[in-house]
């Protein structure tokens, strides 16, 4: 069994990813799609709100209206299109979100400090959460019966609200709970690149040491990979844009974080 994370920028390659998954069932596929949320928010007249933290980090703020678009695009459009692509190939697939079950339970930041007009201000936290709990009984039930699961990165908040969660975090936490043979994280990069060279193999300890030297995005991914590998799961960070992303990852492509 494997968990596969398909990043938003590799969704265009879903036909080939799906074909490659046929021979690697059962699997849980966690997908991204945040870029599409931006596009559909614009179409629906929802202006993106960018907030700045006191230390100067700018980030997108998920307000209630944008969360609604997130649910529609991720749990609706993207999820069902991936499910359809899999069923096209005869692969039994059931698409849910982390809200369903519930599968993923997350904590929302209640209030955050932002900088507006050069002054500090407290505003309610956006509809974004950090995953606190993972429930997998229903996933095991489906996987054990030959169904594959496609999961949208939404979670149930501890106050009952729906929250958007990071897809890498969702895939990682699911992997630590499900203990698959592999977690394969597909994105638009070939793996961890250091000094222009692909790093092909790391222990969890090496991955953590290396993470601090990497840029935003990859550093978090590598920290999560290290965590998952520590729980005994082999993790591969590799490209989702090649013809056979799963086969290549299993054959050594990308960066492998191996339980020590």
């Amino acid at each position, binding site marked *: 069994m494997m968990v596969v994370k398909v990043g938003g920028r590799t969704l265009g390659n879903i036909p080939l990813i799906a074909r490659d998954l046929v021979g690697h069932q059962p699997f849980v596929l966690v997908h991204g799609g945040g870029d599409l949320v931006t596009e559909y928010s614009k179409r629906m007249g929802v202006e993106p709100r960018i907030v700045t933290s*006191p230390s100067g980090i700018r980030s997108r703020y998920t307000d209630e209206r944008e969360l609604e678009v997130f649910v529609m695009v991720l749990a609706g459009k993207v999820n069902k299109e991936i499910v359809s692509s899999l069923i096209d190939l005869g692969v039994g697939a059931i698409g849910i979100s982390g809200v369903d079950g519930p599968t993923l339970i997350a904590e929302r930041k209640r209030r*955050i400090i932002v900088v507006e*007009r050069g002054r500090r201000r*407290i505003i309610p936290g956006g509809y974004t959460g*950090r995953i606190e709990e993972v429930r997998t009984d229903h996933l095991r039930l489906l996987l054990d019966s030959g169904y594959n699961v496609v999961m949208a990165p939404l979670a149930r908040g501890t106050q009952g609200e729906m929250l958007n969660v990071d897809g890498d975090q969702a895939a990682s936490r699911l992997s630590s709970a499900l203990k698959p043979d592999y977690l394969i994280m597909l994105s638009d990069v070939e793996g961890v690149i250091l000094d222009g060279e692909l790093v092909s193999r790391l222990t969890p300890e090496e991955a953590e040491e290396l993470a601090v030297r990497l840029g935003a995005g990859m550093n978090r991914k590598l920290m999560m990979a290290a965590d998952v590998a520590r729980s005994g799961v082999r993790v591969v960070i590799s490209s989702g844009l090649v013809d056979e992303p799963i086969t290549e990852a299993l054959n050594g492509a990308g960066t492998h974080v191996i339980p020590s």
Partner: protein
Amino acid sequence: MEAECPICGSPVELPDDVMAGELLECPSCGATLEVYEQDGTFLLREAEEIGEDWGE
């Protein structure tokens, strides 16, 4: 426009375009105060601790 510091009672100057949730420092006692609105008036209360950590 000014409001009273809930800690030391001193008057605290509010910006003309003051925003609910805005954080100010009391010039007298140094406390960090949060602006809130009640019945169209801006008031001050002690700001609770909120970490810089933005999580994801």
